[in-house]
């Protein structure tokens, strides 16, 4: 099997290498990829939309339809993971581990037994708990607000520097995943629950498609942000810039919620009781 695989790989590689004789040189300004449409985008992006970052302008305004469906794709990936793995077991049929803090004894309570009440002497732990976690908890508690501020900065400054909706959304999701890794999964779920995450996933797609539908209601084509000028009271060029900002916020919300939801489902194997 390995030899067959190796021969197939060598054949494909040879065929691709033979095909490079027709390709243009690297860095050629007259290559066919740079000739036809992208010259129009470079020269007219600031005049049409007043956004200096050409990639953001093309992504959210000239090719906004693709971005809407890409947001729908990542939303459906979260739904697919949910349907594959999520199991709802009732609370009473799991065995739980408790630790008595003054003496350090660990109790294991079988399903159906009596649980200790909420008091300061008993805390619930995971099966992979280690006692040296004070440094990690404190350091991550210091980091997380700054990571979230940076994520919001990246979303808001997508017009003038590299960034935009995706990057900011992933950074915001990563801050919540950091909280879940340093503390345990149950305290993260008590702060950002599963239902709120699912609601935010669909809210972002709804904001994006809703902006497009609003443009239809105001008389222009789907996702033609110039029609929002009559609603906001500015000229059409600034209205396109504000429309790009609104859809980037929608994309950022969806991406954040999808990353958090994927982490919840994958790290607990579907049961949402203990994580990494």
């Amino acid at each position, binding site marked *: *099997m*390995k030899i067959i*695989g*190796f021969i*197939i*790989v*060598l054949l*494909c*590689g040879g065929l*691709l*290498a033979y095909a*490079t*004789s027709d*390709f243009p*040189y*690297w*860095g*050629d*300004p007259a*290559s066919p*990829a*740079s000739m036809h*449409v*992208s*010259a129009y*985008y*470079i*020269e007219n*992006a*600031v005049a049409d939309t007043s956004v*200096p*970052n*050409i*990639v953001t302008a*093309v*992504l959210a305004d000239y*090719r906004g339809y*693709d*971005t809407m469906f*890409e947001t729908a*794709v*990542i939303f*459906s*990936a*979260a739904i*697919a*993971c949910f349907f*594959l*793995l999520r199991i709802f077991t009732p609370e009473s049929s799991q065995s739980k581990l408790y630790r008595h803090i003054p003496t350090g004894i660990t109790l294991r309570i079988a399903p159906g037994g009596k649980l200790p009440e909420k008091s300061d002497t008993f805390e619930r732990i995971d099966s992979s708990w280690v006692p040296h976690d004070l440094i990690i908890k404190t350091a991550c508690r210091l980091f997380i607000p700054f990571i979230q501020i940076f994520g919001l900065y990246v979303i808001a400054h997508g017009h*003038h*520097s*590299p960034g935009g909706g*995706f990057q900011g959304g992933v950074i915001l999701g990563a801050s919540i995943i950091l909280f879940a890794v340093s503390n345990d999964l149950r305290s993260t779920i008590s702060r950002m629950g599963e239902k709120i995450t699912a609601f935010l996933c669909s809210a972002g797609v709804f904001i994006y498609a809703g902006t497009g539908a609003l443009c239809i209601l105001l008389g222009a084509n789907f996702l033609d942000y110039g029609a929002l000028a009559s609603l906001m009271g500015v000229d059409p060029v600034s209205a396109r810039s504000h429309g790009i900002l609104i859809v980037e916020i929608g994309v950022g919300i969806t*991406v954040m919620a*999808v990353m958090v939801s*994927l982490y919840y*489902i*994958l790290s607990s*194997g*579907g049961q949402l009781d203990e994580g990494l």
Partner: protein
Amino acid sequence: MHDLILAIMSKYNYWIYIVLLMIGLYAMMVKKNLVKKIIGMNILQTAIILFYISVSAKKDGTLPIIIHGPHAGHHPVRAADYINPLPHVLMLTAIVVAVATLGVALALAIKVYQQYGTLDEDEIHTRIRK
């Protein structure tokens, strides 16, 4: 002979992408473990993205962000000064789709492990037949 060497050296971005593509394809075909196959799939996806990004580069071109600020004069923008931004846009979509596919693939791998107790392909074949 001299222009053969010249042809090879001026197109070396294509050689990089062919090597990475073949590494990813080999891992997907030959490796027996499911997580190794998923790693091979991701290597293949990033190699394709590298190909598109290398196509968009231009000699003496700068980043695709139009120079603005207090010292930029208001002269017209020429397309030959900036590198081509269109493949960047397509590849942003490709990266997001890659991470979505990775999430679903890992969920499938965990489900297979919960059902059959192993991630090795031959073991799964024997346990299915029982």
